[in-house]
């Protein structure tokens, strides 16, 4: 009854093609956007910004990127960390070469550069699939990280290989660097994430998105009915890398401010967690990308909060528990709901539809 569809007639193609066809969804989404844009900026503090919201937004973007490639186009990739590093280092280099360029433009250009790199590393996908492709993309992860650590040009010959962001402003308010207020960095990321998510959602519903899914479901059949594998696979790599590159640029410029490629873009810090996000969230689902990112970002912090601040365990015991619980949850999740949190949400919707007599 809560999800009452009856009575909501679609009388035009436009309303039939709406992203949120149901009134309830529209209301829920508008409320969410209202809270995100008009309430959170006024109540945010630096802990919520740096520990939860900004990483959540950035990892959502990375998860959308990987979901496009893996969830929609079926090409497994373990190179997320490497591609994020491309975004970060492009931002750094452009920033130092063009000190007056607007940060938004720099970040989008970094995304385009990452897209170009993604196309190059996507070439093997024309010949290999599945696990073999995963190994090939793994190579890109190691190669890119090695490259940014090895060639001093990328980090402007700094002694330590660290790259540090300098202050950049949007409308006169700093959004990067240590002086940036919490609401500014948050809103900056939010605007990018919301805009790019809508773009992704519409791309997926377009001809391009449908050809990705055709390739994912059965590439030979897709080819026979006229979906060109070269163009489709490479476009998936390009667009996915664009999203991941933007995420990497934000991760460096807005979130951390100073990074070291070997540590910040390590396979264990980025590539696997982002893959877990889309698996836990739901492969081939926009909502899943967000739910997965929220889960992976907040779970360790939530567990730590619960165990250390409420129960009063020592920090190290809590950490050991956290690692164990994390592992257990992964296994339980894959057994109980292999389709991820997005599927749980659609089950919940189904139940709400039949409320108060769900079966």
């Amino acid at each position, binding site marked *: 009854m809560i999800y009452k569809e009856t009575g909501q007639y679609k009388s035009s193609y436009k309303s039939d093609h709406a992203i949120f066809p149901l009134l309830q969804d529209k209301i829920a989404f508008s409320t969410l956007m209202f809270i995100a844009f008009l309430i959170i900026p006024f109540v945010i503090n630096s802990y919520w910004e740096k520990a939860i919201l900004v990483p959540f937004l950035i990892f959502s973007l990375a998860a959308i990127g990987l979901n496009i490639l893996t969830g929609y186009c079926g090409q497994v990739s373990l190179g997320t960390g490497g591609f994020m590093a491309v975004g970060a280092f492009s931002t750094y280099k452009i920033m130092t070469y063009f000190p007056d360029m607007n940060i938004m433009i720099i970040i989008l250009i970094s995304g385009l550069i990452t897209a170009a790199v993604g196309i190059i590393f996507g070439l093997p996908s024309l010949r290999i699939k599945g696990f073999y492709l995963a190994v090939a993309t793994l190579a890109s992860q190691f190669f890119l990280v090695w490259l940014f650590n090895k060639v001093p040009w990328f980090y402007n010959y700094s002694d330590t290989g660290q790259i*540090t962001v300098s202050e950049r402003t949007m409308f006169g308010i700093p959004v990067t660097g*240590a002086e940036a207020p919490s609401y500014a960095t948050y809103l900056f990321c939010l605007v990018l994430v919301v805009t790019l998510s809508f773009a992704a959602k519409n791309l997926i519903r377009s001809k391009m998105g449908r050809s990705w899914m055709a390739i994912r479901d059965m590439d030979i059949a897709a080819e026979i009915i006229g979906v060109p594998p070269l163009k489709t696979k490479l476009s998936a790599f390009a667009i996915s890398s664009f999203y991941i590159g933007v995420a990497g640029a934000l991760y460096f410029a807005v979130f*951390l401010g100073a990074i*070291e490629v*070997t*540590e910040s873009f390590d396979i264990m*810090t980025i590539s696997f967690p982002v893959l877990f996000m889309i698996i836990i969230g739901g492969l081939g689902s926009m909502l899943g990308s967000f739910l997965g990112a929220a889960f992976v970002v907040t779970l360790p912090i939530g567990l730590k909060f619960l165990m250390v601040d409420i129960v009063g365990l020592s920090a190290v015991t*809590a950490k050991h528990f956290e690692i164990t619980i994390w592992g257990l949850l992964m296994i339980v999740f894959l057994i109980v709901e292999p389709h991820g949190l997005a599927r749980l949400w659609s089950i919940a919707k189904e139940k709400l539809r039949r409320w108060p007599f769900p079966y």
Partner: protein
Amino acid sequence: MRIKQLLIGMTASVIAVSSYVEMAIADLKFPMLVYRTGAYAPNGIPNADGFVDYYKMINARDGGIGGEKILHPECETGYKTQVGVECYEKNKKDAMVFQPMSTGITYQLIPKATADGVTVYSTGYGRTSAANGKVFKWIFNAPVTYWDGASIAVRHILKNNLGNIRGKKIALVYHNSAYGKEPIRTLETLSKKHGFKLMLLPVDHPGQEQKATWLKIRKARPDNVLMWGWGVMNQVAIKSAASIKFPMDKFIGIWWSGSENDVLPAGKGADGYKSLTFNAPGTDYQVHADIKKYVHDKGQASGDGSHFGTVLYNRGLFQAMVQVEAATVAQKIHGTSKITPAMYRDGMENVNLSAKRLEELGFKDFAPPFKNSCENHGGSGLAAVQQWDANAKKWNMITEYMYGDSDVVQKLIAEDSSKYAAEQKIAERCN
């Protein structure tokens, strides 16, 4: 049904979370970023234990600092930068000082802490040029920096070669990160000055895999090997050096590569391995007696208490002592026991640990005296060489505390800090 349970569970957890109210803090807060898990835990645990035991001892013996109890909440970072940021944000309110115990996290905190007005004390690690107090107002890295360390190691090698190392080959085995790369520039400058050949051998995180590195050393046969390692990397390197029969007395580690945990796994093979240090090992000091009396004998030792008197435990004591001393100095300067983070910074800048003061604090002959000033946040720049005796299973100091090549180091510090000041648009202080 399931939904109902889920809802109940969610409501319960929301109530639990909102009922958590931050307690008002009247005490002095010294948040700790520790890593008792992960690849760096073997080094992180003894060091953290040293800190905690010292704080507990001060609370028990003196009733805190000037009557104010020390709070020392731990936050586990696992040596990860992102978690370090979370820990910092969580604890920065009213925090006196952060001791990140990781060069990566230190780099991360330098701009943030400067903006927030929180002191960061990276004892003998972190960004070397932070020794220039004119640029780095909130950052301290006394008593000695990596660049001092590199030049002290070279000085030791010079001494053992009668002052001439022209044409000799020195290899640097380093953790392939900001930490390990710190000494490279200094060593390059020194290699030009003294005419030795420098061989750079990076080891990737976490440092388990060093076969190729030591194969290269076996082939190239450098006369000396220096090491900038941490965590499991140290153990593997020392074991590998022993297995290729590299002469151990030609192998010198930085002060983070010279603890019991690093040499014990190599057994007798590690005999003669050298490392730099800026504090003495052992338990023959007044502070140890006090810790034994006020903390360990009451069964309140941090961890299992087994690290008492080890190199990194003692270094933890030293680090904690400097942090506590800074609070004492700040209380004296400002004439109040309830100091704010800004007052604490003034205290840290005016720390003067003379031989007499060290003795009063129970650290007689434990470390060389040093003092900070407005210009100098890097302390004395003194370090000594210690050598491992595998039969007695103990470290022996084999040299006096010595200075590095201050001409070279000071020039590099001035260069690097002015570059940073220009990038971040910082005006120099102390003029």
